[in-house]
């Protein structure tokens, strides 16, 4: 694979454990021309707010941003499905010249009239920042006229990275919560579930666990989300934050404003799920019943899934995996879960990890594992083939890279439709991995054909 050269400016974002001293560059802008797997600010905001099912999500800009994000996520709703629509002001040449405020207002009023949403989020795209529409002013006017929260999300694509988009979404959420003018009442033994988006119904799995533990869930932000529920979030006793940071900013704000403490957890894999539930139980140790129930729950759930995991492990033992995900936190969980299945991680990387994240990754991985920050198709292909991976875990943009090289693939992104969290999610994950890794199809791919002479690419 010597044919693939790594760009000089990117060398510091690639590390192979054991080789050099560890000094990873990260949290930088993507390099121009590097075909990053990253998205933009707008994408970050859209991911976080998307699951709020009774809100209107209006994208203010030309049509592209709306078209490409229409119904692309597996976030489920138990009721309204307004979030699955794709609304856009679809700005045209004249709007660019004369400004889009009027069109935005008219569109908003019409849509609110038609769909009666509980709130409206207006996503500002690149161009809105340039033509200078006062979106906040329009929002204020419409909020006044319609009596529902109308909130601008400042997600102009070029104004930072996806992470800045998370922050913009958190600001919007906090602004929504702030609109709750009722007195705050802290509900005992209660939590908000943060950073959980109900992909394939994952929120429901986690909620079920908490209910079994005797913990009240005040709101989920934003899985199966509802405007009213989000506005109640102020009354929870604890914020339990999943995912490596998309909603951490909100938790921090709520801690600062309302004094609600937060803990960071992951629900992925047996180890992390158990740990998450214990942490919450321990937090509410004044209600000892909770810890007792938590123990029973975990015992029961683990017992239920171990046999099928063990069966699959037999086929998976020693197989090698490559991981490239959005947040590094997810990578940690994946490494542990893959260990549960007897698999080894040979490549780990993320789009948005911090220096500390990569240090943790380094410690978790074996000698020789390649660690990558904000990588691109060429690098991902190069290293997963060099490391002879049997499996690649990533999102839709990584899929064709893995497949082209004849490597099994597991989608661990927002587009998947299968719940992977909690104990039952672990079984689903194992099945997905097992299904692809043990497929006989790999016998046929050029990379696996002996003698290597049999050319594939012709």
């Amino acid at each position, binding site marked *: 694979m010597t044919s*693939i*050269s790594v*760009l000089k*400016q990117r060398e510091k974002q690639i590390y192979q454990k054991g080789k050099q001293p560890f000094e990873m560059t990260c949290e930088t*802008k*993507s*390099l*121009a*021309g*590097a*075909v*990053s*797997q*990253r*998205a*933009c600010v707008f994408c970050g905001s859209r991911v976080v707010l998307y699951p709020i099912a009774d809100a209107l999500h209006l994208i203010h*800009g*030309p*049509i*592209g*941003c*709306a*078209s*490409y994000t229409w119904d692309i996520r597996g976030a489920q709703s138990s009721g309204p499905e307004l979030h*699955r629509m*794709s*609304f*856009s002001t*679809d*700005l*045209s*040449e004249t709007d660019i010249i004369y400004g889009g405020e009027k*069109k935005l207002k*008219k*569109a908003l009023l019409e*849509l609110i009239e*038609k769909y009666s949403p509980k709130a409206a989020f207006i996503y500002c795209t*690149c*161009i809105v920042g*340039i033509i200078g529409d006062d979106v906040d002013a329009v929002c204020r006017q419409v909020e006044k006229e319609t009596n529902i929260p109308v909130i601008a999300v400042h997600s102009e*694509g*070029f*104004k*930072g*990275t996806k992470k800045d988009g998370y922050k913009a979404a958190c600001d919007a959420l906090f602004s929504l919560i702030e609109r709750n003018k009722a007195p705050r009442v802290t509900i005992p033994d209660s939590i908000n579930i943060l950073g959980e988006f109900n992909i394939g119904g994952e929120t429901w799995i986690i909620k079920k666990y908490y209910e079994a533990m005797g913990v009240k869930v005040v709101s989920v932000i934003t899985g199966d989300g509802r405007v009213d529920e989000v506005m109640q979030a102020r009354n929870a006793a604890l914020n339990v934050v999943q995912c490596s940071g998309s909603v951490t900013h909100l938790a921090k704000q709520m801690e600062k404003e309302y004094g609600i403490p937060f803990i960071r957890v992951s629900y992925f894999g047996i180890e992390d799920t158990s740990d998450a539930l214990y942490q919450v139980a321990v937090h509410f140790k004044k209600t000892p019943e909770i810890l007792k129930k938590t123990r029973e729950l975990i015992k029961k759930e683990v017992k239920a899934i171990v046999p099928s995991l063990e069966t699959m492990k037999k086929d998976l033992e020693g197989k090698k995996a490559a991981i490239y995900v959005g947040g590094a936190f997810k990578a940690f969980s994946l490494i542990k879960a893959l260990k549960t299945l007897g698999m080894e991680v040979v490549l780990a990387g993320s789009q948005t990890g911090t220096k500390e994240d990569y240090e943790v990754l380094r410690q978790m991985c074996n000698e020789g594992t390649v660690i990558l920050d904000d990588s691109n198709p060429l690098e991902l292909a190069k290293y997963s*083939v060099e490391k002879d991976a049997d499996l690649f875990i990533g999102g*839709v*943009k990584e*899929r*064709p*890279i893995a497949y*082209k090289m*004849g490597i099994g693939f597991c989608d661990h992104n927002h587009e998947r439709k299968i719940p992977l969290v909690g104990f039952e999610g672990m079984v689903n994950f194992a099945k997905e991995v097992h299904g692809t890794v043990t497929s006989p199809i790999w016998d046929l791919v*050029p*990379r696996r054909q002996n003698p*290597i002479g049999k*050319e*594939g*690419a*012709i």
Partner: protein
Amino acid sequence: MTPSRPYKETPSYTATQNACKLCTPLGASLVFQGIEGCVPLLHGSQGCSTYMRRYLISHFKEPVDIASSNFTEETAVFGGGANLKLAIENVARQYAPSMIGIATTCLSETIGDDVRLILNSMDNSINGTALVHVSTPSYSGTHVDGFHGAVAAVVDRFNPADKRIVYRPKKKKTINLFPGMLSNEDLRHLKDIFEDFHTPVTILPDYSERLEGPSWQEYQAIQKGGTTLSAIEKMNVSVHSMEFGAVLALAAEKGQATAGGILNKRFGVSCTRLPIPIGVKATDRFLDILSQISRRPVPERYKKEKWRVVDTYVDGNKYVSKKRALIYGEEDFVVSMAGFLAEVGIIPVLCASGGKSKTFKAALEQTLPENLIDQVIIQNDMDFTCMEETAAAMPEALRPELIIGNSKGYAMARRLKIPMVRVGFPIHDRVGGSRILHVGYKGAQQLFDTIVNAILTEKQTESRIGYSYM
């Protein structure tokens, strides 16, 4: 049985709700994927290229690399020139491409980057890599405009007016074909047809191999396949150009610069514009012209295919006769598909597109038989929500019984409880979307079989009895 004039009022909203179109740079990116060794580069935010890659990957199930100049806030303030140059350098270094196709996004267009000037300052190339720019602000036009724009830009760049025609060999009568946005299978079939006519062809773009290649032994920075630059450079010595697309043809008549038009104006290469050859009659027309220009008879194989499909039309006539269909998609696609449907006896009661040409209606009126036009609602600049509301509001006896279009209409079809046949672009919820054949007799055969079988499936499934004979 002529139903009275159907319900023609269509709802109108300020916002677009579930758009039936994509933004301009996507079309340009697709064209660049169809040129050998070319890497598309979007001059704009990182998100644009990532979203479009994702969108194209979901259809083609292949790697689709699109670089980005990755604007920052400073870029937006101080201009994108520096970023663009850096991006070009990095792409050139990492991919060693034959060409970088640069499409501007709404962002760079709005801040007013003069990309032409920047590229001129670089001599329109870098270390032997050609740089080609197409202006694709997403606030004007749709992906189709980006597509045609990119084709024209590429032809323009490699066939400058002052170019000396080095040779004009009499024997090799190459034909240029600008097919528009067709599927991989369509492109493969067109290549087969030209081969069977023993007539060399340069098809631009041709992403059929690049976006449907084999698995790899080694990773390929740029997949193989695509129109070569050397072939594009020789387009001006071809004997003829063919341009598919009835709407495009009308636009060209009104003065829009098209690839075929440029070659005609500058070099006198004659150009035929014809609808996408979907259906028997449209294919007849295409092969007739091809036969005339190549001075070769239509090969036996196609005659057989033709009469086989006509026989199949006959066999299935009663299943489709007077059935009512809703078609949507790119305007040119809808026009040709409507022509095919009319040819087999299906009434395309609602022809919709998100496109914004002013000639959609005219093109359909040219294509459909006069006695049908009255029964057809024609609407462009339409989104899926208006389409659905229009269909739902039609009186039952006139309402579509069949939905024909890309996979984005699924939710609508599901709610309306109307069976759907997936054709065109994109197909995101099935595999093999790029292997759907639309053109030629064989395409007509497959479309007809698929449509009849969709009708039969519905009939059988909905029947209380479920007969095993039809």
